[in-house]
């Protein structure tokens, strides 16, 4: 490593170990909590919107193609534009700056992976199993609840995992519209030309995203139904 890299890493380490940066309403713990709160709510809203649609179309097997393609628009819309749009809406509704405009930008980003995976998860459940259940007299909602959702759960969770990781990494945008969360370190670091703060912010976001990924992967493994785990 050359001298500049070493000194940059040293100043990053100094910033991260400075007790002043771990205290108060602008400290790292508060920013991490804000980041989790912001990302968590955005993913929850996305799940609440996408899941019923995915389960309905997945179960009936009709119109899923259209639903997935409509949801995929969320992937194409630039988050920055959604953020600006969300800011205008939040101001007009009196919701203030920061939090809600960012949620508005993050939800459309989270919907496509949740919807697509949940739809595919339900469709991929072995049709013989579903037909057998129907033959045994289970109602359509019973089939969905006791057969399709449990068997598809690992794949559904994998969709939520993709959404959550995307959202955690993108929630940094909120700092542009006066939000809190870890993006604050990046935006303020740039404004103040304090590159140790900027790098620390980026590093913390990356760690949080990796942490999200790992937690969801563990959750997916834990939710594989015992019978399916044996097949695999």
């Amino acid at each position, binding site marked *: 490593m050359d001298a500049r890299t070493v000194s940059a890493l040293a100043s990053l380490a100094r910033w991260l170990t400075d007790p002043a940066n771990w205290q108060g*309403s602008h400290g790292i713990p508060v920013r991490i909590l804000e980041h989790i709160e912001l990302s968590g709510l955005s993913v929850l809203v996305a799940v609440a919107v996408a899941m019923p649609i995915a389960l309905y179309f997945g179960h009936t097997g009709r119109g899923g193609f259209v639903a997935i393609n409509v949801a995929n628009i969320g992937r194409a819309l630039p988050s920055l534009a959604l953020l600006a749009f969300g*800011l205008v809406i939040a*101001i007009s509704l*009196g919701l*203030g*700056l920061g939090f809600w405009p960012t949620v508005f930008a993050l939800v459309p980003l989270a919907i496509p992976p949740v919807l697509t995976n949940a739809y595919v998860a339900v469709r991929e459940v072995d049709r013989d199993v579903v037909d057998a259940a129907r033959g045994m007299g289970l109602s359509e909602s019973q089939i969905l609840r006791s057969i399709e959702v449990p068997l598809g759960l690992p794949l559904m969770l994998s969709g939520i995992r993709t959404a959550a990781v995307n959202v955690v990494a993108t929630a940094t945008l909120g700092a542009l*519209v*006066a939000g809190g969360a870890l993006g604050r370190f990046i935006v*303020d670091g740039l404004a103040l030309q304090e590159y140790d703060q900027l790098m620390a912010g980026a590093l913390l976001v990356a760690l949080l995203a990796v942490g999200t990924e790992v937690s969801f992967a563990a959750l997916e493994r834990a939710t594989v139904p015992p019978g399916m785990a044996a097949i695999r």
Partner: protein
Amino acid sequence: MKRGRMLVAALVAVAVVASACGGTGGTGGAAKPDVIVGSTNFYEQITLGELYSQVLEANGYKVTRKFNLGAREIVEPALESGQIDVDAEYLATLLAFVDKDGTIAKPTTDPKATQTGLQKALDPKALTVLDYAAATDQNGFVVTQATATSKSLKKLSDLVPVAKDMVLGGPPECPQRPFCALGLKNTYGITFKDFKPLDTGGPLTITALDGKQIDIGLLFTSDPSIVAKNFVLLDDDKHLQLADNIAPVVRNALLQKDDGTLKRLLNSISAKLTQPELNDMNKQVAVDKADSKVVAAAWLKKQGLIK
């Protein structure tokens, strides 16, 4: 300052300036030289350009308007080279621009001293800065009318006893900048309860102040929202901010062709241009979307400068 407003449409502006070349012919009346009035590219500059143009036209000058040329990086060289003859400038910012290292003079918080320093820096460029107005376009701290009333705030030093319960909002770099929170602390001894990072005199700060998410915000002193939202601009009574008073800058060549009327007319505008007057015009143009030509004409009539 004003960086945000200086998005340079460089190519367009260069083209406009180029097309203005050779328009300085003195073929008008014997004692009335033709004048090209220029401006940079935001609403306040265009209104100021209209004020200068209309007062000259009303007194028999043939005026060509070259507005919206771009940032100062375009307009100042255009003035030096004679592609324009006069424009409205800001004392401290122009001084820092023409004398970047401060070898001739450094901008100060005193407008008179800054003007004297600026003239020294402009002498080698054959330019003259005329009288400055009371109106400025510089950093200013504003509160809502309700806050001003309840805490009886008129000037920045009024904040000293109450600031510990107030949240300041401004650009993210504010806490460490001498013309923002750091300056308030060092010059006035003011420390706020908290600081909320927002933007540089933009919509975030205005909305946060309006929505009571902050108690005091940093805006530019001529921001139209001060009038539109009925904000109160606190007087910088200990002179923290550099003097960015508005003043016309004219080419010496033009002044030499003239009998002194032009100088008198432009100075008569500066004499009447107070902060509330400027902010009111800015609000009409930027918020109410009125035509700057009409706004300028109405103001000049009201002040008795044109008929």
